[in-house]
């Protein structure tokens, strides 16, 4: 008996002529994610992707853990692949399902037979397998309407598959099918969630972080690394640009009205990010803003920051409450990293009374005191690049 994994891709099945391209991206992503787990082969049949280990040492539990983080998978199942022989199937069902049937009391068997040459018809297979399970596990009864668990036996061309537990996948689209975008990440709770959400829609992530030593610490940069490493478990490798931001923040502090500090700063971040994004073929920026969360995220303030950007700015959290964002950040295990108490570039020099209804012309006027172009260029030129790897 060999254990395999059957993967159902989600929305992909709905795609028309692009479907095969989308599927091959998904297969490539799965292969890359699992390459160090031992030998295996991947095959496709209809809308199912099958992973068959070729080495005894293949780590099935770890494979399941990793697959649960691959976008583009709606659901997957571990299954036993056995010879198409009724005696073998019955014995395998009794052995393979023991653990999964131990903590339930009702079940039913569903059989599918795509190999019509197999001597038994589907209802007959169901009946026999059900009988064998009842004989082996006296605590079970059959309930065809509302079973605790459904046992599926599928007889296909190559083998028969026995399975029971469906595992929910991460959903979404395979990363790489949606192009590339740059995520602005500070180290708070929101931006990792925002990045995760767009990665889920198939977008490859680059990240831009603004560091202002000595106002921000090495610990704050390490926090951003750790956050991205966690997101990368879903999104795959992330390119990180760390932009030197001290000079710009000092210039704003010394030359602009205090109440506009944050917005002028945000506009610089947007301009710098866009420039890096264009250079790296990103088609959009991503931020973790949500309307009204802080002064710089009122609708009018967002309008003022958008005014300096010539590409789409995606804000997937725009309508979410903080507690909803926190729920998600706990799900993807970024919350505990986000709350490490280090100052980031957004918390230094915060004005006591920031403008919540800013006027664009005031901001433009305030920026006239600064050598905007040179400041941006120096920051972009000074950005340090590294790759945050997807590791488990």
């Amino acid at each position, binding site marked *: 008996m060999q254990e395999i994994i059957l993967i159902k891709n989600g929305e992909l099945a709905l795609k028309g002529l692009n479907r095969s391209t989308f599927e091959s991206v998904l297969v490539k992503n799965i292969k890359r994610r699992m390459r160090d787990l031992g030998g295996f082969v991947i095959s496709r049949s209809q809308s199912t992707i099958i992973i068959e280990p070729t080495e005894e040492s293949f780590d099935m539990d770890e494979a399941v853990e990793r697959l649960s983080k691959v976008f583009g998978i709606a659901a997957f199942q571990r299954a036993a692949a056995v010879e198409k022989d009724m005696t073998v199937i019955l014995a395998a069902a009794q052995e393979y399902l023991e653990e999964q049937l131990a903590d339930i009391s009702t079940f039913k068997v569903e059989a599918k037979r795509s190999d019509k040459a197999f001597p038994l018809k589907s209802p007959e297979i169901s009946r026999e397998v059900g009988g064998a399970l009842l004989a082996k596990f006296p605590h079970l009864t059959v309930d065809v309407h509302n079973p605790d668990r459904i046992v599926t036996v599928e007889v296909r061309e190559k083998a028969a598959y026995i399975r029971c537990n469906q595992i929910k996948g991460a959903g979404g689209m395979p990363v790489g099918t949606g192009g590339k975008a740059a995520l602005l990440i500070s180290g708070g709770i929101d931006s990792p969630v925002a990045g995760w959400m767009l990665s889920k829609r198939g977008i490859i992530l680059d990240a831009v972080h603004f560091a202002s*030593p000595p*106002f921000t610490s090495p610990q704050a940069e390490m926090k951003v690394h750790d956050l991205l490493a966690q997101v990368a478990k879903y999104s795959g490798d992330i390119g990180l640009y760390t932009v030197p931001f001290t000079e710009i923040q000092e210039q704003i502090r010394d030359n602009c009205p205090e109440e506009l500090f944050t917005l002028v700063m945000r506009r610089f971040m947007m301009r710098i990010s866009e420039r890096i994004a264009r250079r790296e073929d990103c088609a959009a920026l991503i931020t973790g803003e949500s309307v009204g969360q802080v002064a710089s995220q009122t609708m009018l303030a967002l309008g003022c920051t958008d005014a300096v950007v010539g590409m789409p700015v995606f804000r997937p959290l725009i309508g979410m409450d903080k507690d909803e964002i926190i729920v998600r950040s706990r799900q993807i295990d970024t919350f505990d990293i986000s709350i490490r108490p280090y*100052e980031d570039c957004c918390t230094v020099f915060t004005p006591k009374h920031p403008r919540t209804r800013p006027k664009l012309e005031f901001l433009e006027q305030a920026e006239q005191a600064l050598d905007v172009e040179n400041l941006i260029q120096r920051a972009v030129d000074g950005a340090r690049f590294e790759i945050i790897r997807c590791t488990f």
Partner: protein
Amino acid sequence: MECYLDNSATTKPCEAAVQAAVQAMTDVFGNPSSLHRHGFAAMQLLESARAAVAKPLSAEPGEIYFTPSGTAANNTAIFGAVRKNRRRGNKIVTTAFEHPSVEKCMERLESEGFTVVRLIPDKKGIITAEQFAEVIDEKTILVSLMAVNNEVGSVLPFTEIASVIRRKKAPALLHVDAVQGFLKLPIIPKKYDIDLLSVSAHKVHGLKGAGALYMRKGVQLPPYILGGGQENGLCSGTQAMPAIAAFAAAVKACGDVRENLETTELLNGRLREKLAGVQGITVHSPESALPYILNISLEGIPSQVSVNFLSGEGVYVSAGSACSKGHRSPVLTAMGLSAEEIDSAIRLSLSRETTENEIDSCVRALQNAAEQLRKKG
């Protein structure tokens, strides 16, 4: 020049301590509970360490119980004392600015139904014996106070509390958390009738991983950690011999406590004097504070920013408070400082090895911080 002024967080182990630890990992590696030759050697090392730690406290070796940390010593003392005395009353008296290893125990006891009275320090971190006298009564089963506050250095009236307890006819045991005071002030528990007193090795140029609880002869506490019965049953677990041997070596290498104190007073005076010339610095430590600790605020500069900046200048101090996103220092909050003062507080902490040159370069770095981190013009 590098200047390490975070000695209240931890000290650099002295050479003698390092040597002793190495010896306890190579020659004398046995388990002190083993009966064979290696065990016996380790047991001898352990007992001589006990005597060494007892000496500056003028205690008997048998009154010293090794623990894994100052925190473990505090937990053992507090939970032990309360368990022992719980039938005699319900009230515990402590201060509002204890170290978390005491405060968190108090919160636990409160949730179990004990009444905890926390005395509030004044703006300079001072609490008087009279404040204790006002609240200690015949239902008080434990009084726990620190000898020296860890953030501002104020010295508490730990020498006077035993007589208050006697006067009030309280059944209370007296516990003193002396982690910041040990080997910095002359502390003789017997002289002040202290029942329980906690110390830690790594604050006195020893290693992390060892602390000790002084427990006055005649006092018996139920153990807090159960197991193989080490340390006379009070703190089970195989003793961390390298850290304990290093602890003893560090204690021996300490030199004269009073002499060190006088030298440090001079350094502290120099520091205060020079800081008076830096714009926007407020000193939070009282004049009477232990000279090893000086808590100050750099007006308008968040603590973490100062710490980062000074770190870049080779000067290592600690943030009086977590960042603007984190929690404010409970110590400075209890002292009634303003939010701005708390958010910009840093702690400079000296050791017996601190030099005048270090003090001077620290002041220069603070001067640079004041000039460079503030808004120009």
